[in-house]
């Protein structure tokens, strides 16, 4: 059964042994970050529910919802031990059902309490500092809904880091390459506020899709329906009628102030480094609607990889360029863009002809996500599982010829939070073509690959059975 709220998912995780309840009182700092970090560093890390946080009687916190591939499989309603490549292809199959449009509901728990006078984010949410040198308390897993301010169309649901600066004041990172920046730019050109709604504590597929680099025209809610296997329930937000996920615990409404910037950050970002301080846009909050207490506040631990954000942005980040490239290049087998949100990306494909690996790498760099993020692109043949780094390393070691297969593209667009850059936003891209020479390239005459015996996979299964149940 697909999950229509975070509560429904927590039940499933508990049944499957993937939920740990912390019943004793915890401090907002440093206990939550420490325990969340521990959960995500464990093999098969569980979801952690903090039932009592010091200072709030009626608030709970949940962390690590996406924080292992076991949790990721449960989110997709698959057996929790489902392997990575299998999860990738399952997600790929469901992606092709797009669009499954959402259904509108008239009532939802996220409207039980309406705070439309003097809203206070500190009163409504058990906010905490995620990492010690963050500039404040962050909403690190919030889904932000906005529309084109001129047409009222092209609704977007995206995940952007949000700093809570005061009771009703937020800082928001609307980086130029993100869809919300298109809406915000128009609003600023017209000098009008951009109305937004922020949904907190959503079912895990909603969050997954909000953090997926879809194309500008694609509708996130219709993709959530496709991935989930049934339409997503949405409800009109209280003030502006923006479509928000009905299953959310909390909806915050407000407006991004035009032509105004103020200090924001730093924040520990996905590369495992703190971003610098910048002056970024601000939101004036004017309405909060939510469930009755106790609400469950979901946040994201980010820090030195691997951690929850790496699991959350693993297969969705891989699938987006795969789907965007596949129509032109049906030979592509799979793409792994799991490392630092795709800074390192591995493409596995059949080779149409010699040099084709470079063609694929260059095409990746023209996909929406590929423009800025990838800087190390490795291309391997279809016999290499790009999710198995031992195989990828083997391909590089035995198939990569640096004098022919290394491409360097200097002064190319890069991620603004990459700590390796001399100039933020400018990078050097490196392509490593680790594919075998294909015609008309010259194959190595004496290179013969050793095949594994054909019945090896079935014997692996058999040995596993006998290990579990010795005769």
């Amino acid at each position, binding site marked *: 059964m697909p999950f229509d709220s975070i509560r429904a998912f927590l039940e499933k995780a508990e049944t499957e042994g993937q939920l740990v309840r912390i019943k004793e009182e915890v401090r907002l*700092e440093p206990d939550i970050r420490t325990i969340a970090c521990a959960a995500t560093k464990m093999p098969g890390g569980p979801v952690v529910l903090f039932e009592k946080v010091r200072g709030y009687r009626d608030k709970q916190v949940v962390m690590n919802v996406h924080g292992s591939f076991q949790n990721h499989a449960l989110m997709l309603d698959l057996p929790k031990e489902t392997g990575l490549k299998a999860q990738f292809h399952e997600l790929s199959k469901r992606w092709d059902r797009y669009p499954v449009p959402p259904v509108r509901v008239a009532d939802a728990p996220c409207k039980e309490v309406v705070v439309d006078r003097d809203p206070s984010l*500190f009163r409504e949410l058990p906010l905490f500092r995620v990492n010690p040198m963050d500039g404040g308390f962050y909403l690190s897993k919030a889904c932000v809904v906005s529309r084109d301010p001129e047409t009222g169309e092209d609704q977007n649901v995206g995940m952007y880091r949000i700093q809570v600066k005061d009771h009703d004041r937020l800082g928001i990172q609307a*980086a130029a390459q993100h869809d919300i920046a298109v809406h915000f730019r128009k609003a600023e050109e017209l000098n009008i506020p951009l109305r937004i709604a922020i949904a907190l504590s959503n079912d895990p597929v909603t969050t997954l899709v909000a953090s997926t680099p879809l194309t500008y025209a694609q509708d996130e809610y219709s993709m959530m329906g496709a991935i989930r296997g049934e339409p997503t329930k949405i409800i009109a937000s209280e003030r502006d009628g923006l479509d928000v996920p009905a299953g959310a615990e909390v909806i915050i409404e407000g407006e991004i102030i035009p032509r105004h910037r103020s200090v924001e950050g730093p924040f520990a970002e996905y590369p495992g480094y*703190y971003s610098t*301080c910048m002056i970024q846009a601000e939101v004036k909050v004017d309405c909060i609607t939510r469930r009755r207490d106790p609400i469950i506040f979901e946040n994201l631990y980010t820090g030195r990889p691997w951690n929850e954000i790496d699991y959350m942005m693993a297969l969705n980040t891989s699938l987006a360029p795969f789907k965007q490239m596949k129509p032109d290049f049906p030979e592509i087998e799979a793409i792994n863009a799991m490392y630092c949100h795709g800074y390192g990306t591995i493409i596995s494909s059949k080779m149409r002809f010699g040099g084709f690996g470079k063609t694929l790498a260059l095409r990746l760099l023209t996909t929406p996500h590929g423009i800025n993020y990838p800087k190390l692109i490795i291309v391997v043949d279809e016999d290499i599982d790009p999710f198995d780094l031992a195989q990828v390393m083997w391909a590089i070691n035995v198939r990569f010829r640096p004098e022919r297969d290394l491409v360097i593209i200097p002064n190319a667009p890069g991620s603004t939070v990459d700590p390796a850059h001399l100039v933020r936003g400018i990078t050097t891209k490196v392509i490593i073509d680790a594919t075998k020479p294909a015609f008309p390239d010259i194959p190595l005459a004496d290179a013969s690959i050793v095949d594994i015996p054909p019945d090896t996979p079935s014997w692996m299964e058999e040995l596993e059975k006998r290990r579990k149940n010795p005769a």
Partner: protein
Amino acid sequence: MMCPRCESEQAYKIFEAPEDPKLWEVFRCPRCNFSWRSTEEESITDPKQYSPKFKLTEKQIQELAPKPPIPPLRNGKRG
């Protein structure tokens, strides 16, 4: 109240624990937008112990780059 990060004297209390005000208080700095809870480590709450690498001066604030850049107004619009 001095901001641990930018050392502005304008920082002030904005919130206290709803369950019991004695448990903790939250402060904010209107100049650099830093906020902190009274119960955090002294390396966060004490201006003398706050990491020099993360300190922020008025001059640095003035030099920060806007993200995203502010676009020109369309014809006929007033800033």
